[in-house]
């Protein structure tokens, strides 16, 4: 009975994750306003507190870059380019606003392209996070930036974002993050029940759903997973790392080779849900502090940079999750990931953890080469 429930819930998540546009249409039909949220670390809580729906935009596995070429040279990550493509080709016409963070060198100029391309069509809300996020002056800067986002969102929604509403939003998001963290753990423990493809569907759907709804469904799923007997997994377990790995066709290769995902260090999955925001006190400060607490991320400055903290952190993740290796999904043209690869490799090698680096981008349609590499990797684990 419980497997049936699990499968049915997983199917629901998968459906939503594959059809974000249906979600936007449904929200609009209910009279809700929808705000597109680009990577990385935008404070979705503000959108929620304004009574609007945040919609994560992480490119697309189904589109091809065409109109975006008017703005971008070829050597830019497909996540950013396909986001622009969807803004230009009408896919995202129903949006009421767009938040454009600028924490990598592609998103910096892209924030300008988004604003120029969407002139008179869609308000674009600029967001620059600080890299010195921990000292008092850094916290203050984050709050200043979030204040700007807040007032722009208020203009779009017509609602004032009260401290009370924001605290409530923080509670909703903390609960969502906790449920997702638990799910990641449970999925790693029960790969017989949650395939790599379905795991991705659950986490991806979080970007397209109102968090209350996602959390309710996910808590139900987690309860079912918790009730399962311990899994006697005959296959292998790995940790995934990278910006994004949400292509079902690619993930299917893992399932076919009995490689389960025990944990992840992925920007689209676990990196943004590692830390929560305080539910009491000044909620803007709570959000700034939450950003300051983010760590071990290729995008973020590490004040202890002469150490290899991030490499050590990922090694610990692999060990703690009981994985035997790591698969790095190297997003094409992602220089922050590329810059941190040698030291990740160093830490993994030192710990005797095997890994492979798979070059990916969202316009990939043929996974033959990846399939061969993954199969070969499974053999050495």
């Amino acid at each position, binding site marked *: 009975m419980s497997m049936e429930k699990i499968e049915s819930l997983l199917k629901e998540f998968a459906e939503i994750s594959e059809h974000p546009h249906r979600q936007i249409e449904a929200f609009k039909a209910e009279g809700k306003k929808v705000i597109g949220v680009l990577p990385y670390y935008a404070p979705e809580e503000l959108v929620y507190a304004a009574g609007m729906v945040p919609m994560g935009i992480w490119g697309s596995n189904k589109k091809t870059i065409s109109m975006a070429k008017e703005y971008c040279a070829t050597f830019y990550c497909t996540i950013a380019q396909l986001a622009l493509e969807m803004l230009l080709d009408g896919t995202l016409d129903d949006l009421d606003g767009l938040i454009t963070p600028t924490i990598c060198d592609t998103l910096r*100029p892209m924030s300008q392209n988004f604003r120029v391309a969407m002139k008179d069509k869609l308000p674009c809300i600029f967001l620059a996070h600080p890299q010195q996020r921990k000292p008092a002056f850094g916290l203050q800067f984050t709050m200043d930036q979030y204040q700007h986002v807040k007032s722009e969102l208020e203009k779009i929604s017509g609602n004032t974002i009260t401290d009370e509403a924001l605290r409530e939003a923080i509670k909703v998001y903390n609960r969502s993050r906790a449920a997702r963290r638990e799910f990641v753990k449970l999925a790693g423990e029960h790969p017989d029940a949650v395939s790599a493809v379905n795991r991705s569907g659950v986490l991806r759907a979080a970007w397209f759903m109102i968090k209350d709804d996602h959390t309710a469904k996910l808590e139900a799923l987690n309860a079912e997973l918790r009730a399962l007997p311990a899994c006697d997994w005959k296959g292998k377990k790995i940790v995934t790392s990278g910006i994004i790995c949400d292509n079902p066709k690619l993930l299917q290769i893992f399932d076919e080779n009995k490689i389960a995902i025990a944990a992840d260090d992925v920007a689209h999955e676990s990196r943004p849900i590692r830390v929560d925001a305080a539910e009491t006190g000044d909620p803007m400060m709570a959000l700034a502090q939450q950003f300051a607490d983010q760590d071990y991320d290729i995008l973020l400055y590490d004040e202890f940079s*002469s150490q290899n903290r991030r490499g050590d952190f990922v090694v610990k993740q692999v060990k703690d999750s009981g994985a035997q290796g790591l698969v790095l999904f190297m997003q094409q043209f992602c220089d922050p990931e590329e810059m941190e690869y*040698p030291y990740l490799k160093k830490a993994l090698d030192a710990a005797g953890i095997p890994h492979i680096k798979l070059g990916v981008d969202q316009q990939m349609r043929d996974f033959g080469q990846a399939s061969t590499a993954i199969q070969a990797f499974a053999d050495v684990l």
Partner: protein
Amino acid sequence: MAKEVSPGVLALRKVVEDVYADARVAKKEGKLVGWSSSKFPCELAEAFGLNVMYPENQAAGIAANRDGEIMCKAAEDLGFDNDICGYTRISLAYAAGKRASRKVDLETGEYVINPNSGKPLKDENGKVVMGEDGKPVKDPKTMQPYTVLDDIHEIEALPDGREKDLRRAAIKPYRQMQMPQPDFVLCCNNICNCMTKWYENIARMCNVPLIMIDIPYNNTVEVHDTNVAYVRAQFDHAIKQLEELTGKKFDEKKFEEACANANRTASAWLRVCDYLQYKPAPYSGFDLFNHMADVVTARGRVQAAEAFEQLEKDLAEAVKTGKSTTPFPEKYRVMFEGIPCWPKLPNLFKPLKEHGVNVTAVVYAPAFGFVYNNMDEMVRAYYKAPNSVCIEQGVSWREGICKDNKVDGVLVHYNRSCKPWSGYMAEMQRRFTEDLGIPCAGFDGDQADPRNFNEAQYETRVQGLVEAMEANAENKEG
């Protein structure tokens, strides 16, 4: 590009030589030597009398000395992807101890000459001498040893003796390949976020402290007070860190001197840039690229200010006498957008010379003109780096110099090494054409990795630009 070298240019060359030489001496004496990003507020380090080297300037020099590829490949062997900025790759390979060396025969102690190197031998009539194989004979005087990659850590691990001495001596002698390793690093990421991870990697490789000034991207032409407050607080924080590092107190007087020098250098630099407004221009914008080394490495030194002031005098004289260092009659004037392809400067220059195209505007002119009167203004000045400004500011800078320097077209370098720079160029090109009525042509290249430059494409694009400028001129006349 043979030309008469003016006193100002000679002075500028000496300033950069001295900066490197002083750092080498300091290192030998056991003093601290730092590495700094080009747009870190050098005034802060100057206040502590610190010797500072600039990896961006170093990488450009290594690339111009034709060692970009071997150093880039060395970084790739360390695991750094070839998508990463060429300066970064060169610098990280260097930080890891990799060096471009001359191939040495350990038995004879002599360098092994590459028979394919060197310039063609010419006879007394200036004609190229052909060999029996039908290929030009090389002038033995210009032939060079093979370039090989070496590693200072490997060399230092050798027992004292002949091999160690020979390999040490074989490291190429030009200043950028002889830069001392860092004892600390100064990073300001106003020009790109890659800088952040670049310097973190150096700090890790060399196990040295990193002093960080974060200047986030800005979406408006004005710099808000909240942004100023954030960066100002970091200046104060950096000063504290420098005090801890050096064990010295912040010297207010030295700081003010450095600020005065930096302002004087920047003003003189801007005035030198303005000489490109003359028609015909007394020099080529390509020369400015060479002088950038001074603005980057020595703008806080009085010698840099004086050298630019000397160059200014030379230029005034050149204008008076109608002289120009451009070795061809100026037919068209263009803005060169972006960092030049350092390993391919002669190839960049060739078709421009053929068509009489002089570069009379470069974006670096306003980009390094940091002029300010107090600490808050200094923050605002450093906030406005080429890649940290919004599109409106970027367009306004460029259109300003295009108008002032009377350009007929724009040549845009889509620099494979620089995502933040190239990322909004397509829209900028549209605006240049719409606002100024001038044609633009783009080409693919790289500031340091010669593998990313396609000469044939470049020549075709230059040709296309020339045709468009010609048509534009005819229309105006008609």
